[in-house]
């Protein structure tokens, strides 16, 4: 059983700027390798790398942990909050585009299982391969039965043109 994958379509939005909270990260090593693997995939397609953002990490981890504890897989939590609302609630801003991938797996190599699953799904692949994203947050949590829950947030902090020639 590979798991289920959920992706949020690219959706432009504007938010505020703030520092995110510090989060407990028991799977920091797994998250770091996952982030490297994603960037390796992007590099192979001549896409800019995703820089990890501690505030986004905290939001992604909180959602992964929530899914693992309450045993659900969705972009919308039981309180009805979607990823943008969670990002807004954390006071994170300055972004113009955002997306989220989520998944779960109970396989031995969870990073590869999740990544291959996302790459096999057009919607998730679209988020992984979206050119404008330049920041990311990765969250991994594990349920009591050993199932891994993954959340990855992708956002664009736009670089305005150095000079718009007119």
């Amino acid at each position, binding site marked *: 059983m590979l798991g289920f994958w959920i992706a949020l*379509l690219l959706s432009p939005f504007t938010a505020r700027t703030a520092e995110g909270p510090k989060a407990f990260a028991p799977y920091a090593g797994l998250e770091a390798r996952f982030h490297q693997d994603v960037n390796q995939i992007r590099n192979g397609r001549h896409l*800019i790398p995703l820089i990890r953002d501690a505030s986004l990490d905290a939001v992604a981890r909180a959602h992964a942990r929530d899914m693992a504890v309450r045993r659900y897989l969705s972009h919308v939590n039981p309180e009805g909050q979607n990823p943008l609302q969670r990002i807004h609630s954390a006071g994170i801003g300055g972004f*113009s585009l955002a997306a989220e991938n989520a998944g779960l797996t109970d396989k031995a190599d969870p990073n590869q299982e999740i990544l291959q699953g996302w790459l096999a799904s057009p919607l998730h692949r679209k988020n992984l391969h979206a*050119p*404008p994203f330049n920041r990311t947050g990765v969250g991994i949590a594990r349920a009591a039965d050993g199932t891994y829950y993954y959340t990855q947030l992708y956002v664009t902090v*736009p670089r305005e043109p150095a000079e718009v020639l*007119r």
Partner: protein
Amino acid sequence: MKSSSLRGRSIALVAFATFLFGWGAARASVISGVCPDGSMFIIKNRADIPCAAAKLVAPDDMPPIKPEYLPRPYGWQRFHREQDPNNPYNLLEGIETQNAYQPPPAPISQQATHSEQPVPSVSGPPQPRARDGSIQVSDQQIADLIQIVQLTQQRAPAKLEIENNGSPSLRLQLAHSRGFETQAKRSWASRGMPATGPVLLFTAEAMAPVVFHPNFTFAQGHTAFHADSEDPKQFGMLVGRPGALEAGTTVLGYVVLPPSVDLAQPVDIYWNDHRLAVTLRP
């Protein structure tokens, strides 16, 4: 095992007999041939032959009507033909690529108005003019399209200058051309690949050695779209190729947007994470 093999053979024989029967019937009811201009016809009555001095050809001797649709042999043969350095057509094309993209001098009044925006010369390795799904354009048309992109900037500026260590390295310009859009859509429709969304042209001009990949994203309202550079119905290069560009090189390409994109409304154009807010048809 044996019975399985026999059963397979009997099915193959039945299928083959059916094929022969169908072929014979079709052969008796059609007239096919080739006109002196190279066009082909398949008709039912001799009176419908569309040209004088037609050569009647049996259907099974007819060349494929659209050989580029054949999956392998034709494409493979054409690839080698286009790559063959001894093919005189490739040599000619290389010379054209180096020499023919100097646009004609503009009228004096126009030069005075637009002297700050000279049309760049296009250089680079010889490029095939059309691939399956791409648009066929002449050398003159390429020069015209580059000029259209530049001149459109006055009415609908969509220009992005990328700097590297404080000095300009890449200039991107996008524009909508109704003429090119019509031509492109007609071309795709004739190949059974209708497209309905707006078609944008872009140029990427290297002002220093730079790597360019067409990582464009277009966002309008709550939808965003990034073209798949491997799908000719979403993206194509008319001159040059993505990758490393030498200083002074200009590449020209197109992007097909989803039908829902309204060019009269503001669009956020991203190249990687560089953003530009424009209205392409103000």
